[in-house]
């Protein structure tokens, strides 16, 4: 009965290395079973601590950090190709697209032939912009931009482009990142920096000068004189 009373105190005593309470010490002096139980409990906890330390300090496999470095590089490459975007970004992009399309749909219906004139504007602007592009062009869109079809929203974009001091080019959407990377790499080469950043000076236009024409004076003859002249020739023959 006395042992049952001290059972909880024995567990607490085994858990801590503090001094034992007086009544427990007195009981342990007289009870060999509880003394043995306390020793067993302390050994058990020592074994638990030892097992925990062994498990918690396991040697780290040498392949862990190199594998993580590799995956980090892959992660960076993936995020460069497809920048991380959350759902709100998709929503914002969709909303912007809808807002951009609403005013553009109406004039397109009203004047289908307007697309032709916008194409001409696009061609002119593309020619202007392509002057500032480094010569080894990475995109097929830059090689024959004139042959591309332009959508009505191009008019807005081109109008904005005309006001912008930066050179701009037309590229397919999926080639934008590639173009940016190409420009980044091209600009690191000194010879190309000049080409990319300093557009070639336009040739000075001189006023058109037209030389005066030297036109010989007409030899005017009356019809009567011509008739007489014809008659003379006839008589001679």
């Amino acid at each position: 009965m006395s042992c049952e009373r001290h059972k909880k105190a024995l567990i607490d005593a085994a858990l801590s290395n503090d001094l034992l309470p007086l009544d427990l010490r007195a009981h342990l002096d007289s009870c060999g079973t509880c003394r043995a139980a306390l020793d067993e409990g302390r050994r058990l906890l020592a074994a638990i601590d030892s097992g925990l330390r062994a498990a918690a300090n396991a040697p780290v496999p040498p392949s862990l950090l190199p594998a993580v470095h590799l995956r980090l590089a892959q992660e960076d490459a993936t995020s460069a190709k497809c920048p991380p975007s959350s759902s709100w970004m998709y929503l914002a992009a969709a909303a912007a697209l809808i807002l951009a399309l609403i005013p553009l749909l109406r004039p397109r219906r009203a004047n289908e032939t307007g697309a032709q004139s916008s194409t001409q504007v696009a061609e002119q602007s593309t020619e202007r912009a392509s002057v500032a592009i480094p010569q080894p062009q990475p995109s097929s869109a830059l090689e024959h931009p004139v042959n591309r079809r332009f959508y009505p929203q191009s008019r807005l974009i081109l109008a904005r482009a005309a006001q912008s001091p930066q050179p701009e080019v037309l590229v397919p959407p999926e080639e934008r990142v590639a173009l940016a990377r190409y420009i980044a790499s091209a600009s690191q080469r000194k010879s190309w920096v000049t080409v990319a950043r300093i557009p070639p000076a336009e040739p000075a236009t001189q006023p058109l000068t037209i030389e005066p024409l030297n036109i010989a004076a007409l030899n005017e003859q009356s019809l009567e004189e011509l008739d007489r002249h014809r008659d003379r020739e006839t008589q001679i023959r």
Partner: protein
Amino acid sequence: MQELVLVQPSSAAEREWAKEAATAATRREFEERLAECGPQAYRIARGVLRNDADAEDVAQEALIRAYRRFDQLRDRDRFRGWLVRISFRLALDRVRSGKRREQRETLWSQTSPRATTEDLAASSEFQAHLDRALEELSPKLRLVLLLAAMEGHTTEEVAQMLAIPTGTVKSRLSLARKQLAEKLRCHVNATKKP
């Protein structure tokens, strides 16, 4: 027919440069911490999973997740505790998936009599029982127990890592050890009976 978009190469390139520079800076900072805290992510996972291959998988995943969200961590001094919690949660998820539960159950049911506790710590059987008892602890208790056993962390260090009071760490440690002792004592007593 192909749709074209108008871009400014120079401004796009500048954005690209800025983005790449920011990525490189983040990567450098992360890698500095990786060398210091990477092993801890593994050990936490190993402490939960008791399996080297699984622990390596989980540690890798934890480190990659930490890298993805590294920008969201405002106080970088809390990186260690943050990484520990990520690794611990992932390891718990892996355990809960139950892929290797059957194997552990089999190991648990294989009991052989042991006369004393002296050689318990060295025995694989005791380790298996300890694993099982650990698994039955609540996650809070288990994490504190593992961190305290790891690399000789003091209770203050554990408290700092987990951002909880030192007293809470002490009480959780005491409770966890008590529960483990009770679980394992029953087993030892049972195996000692003839």
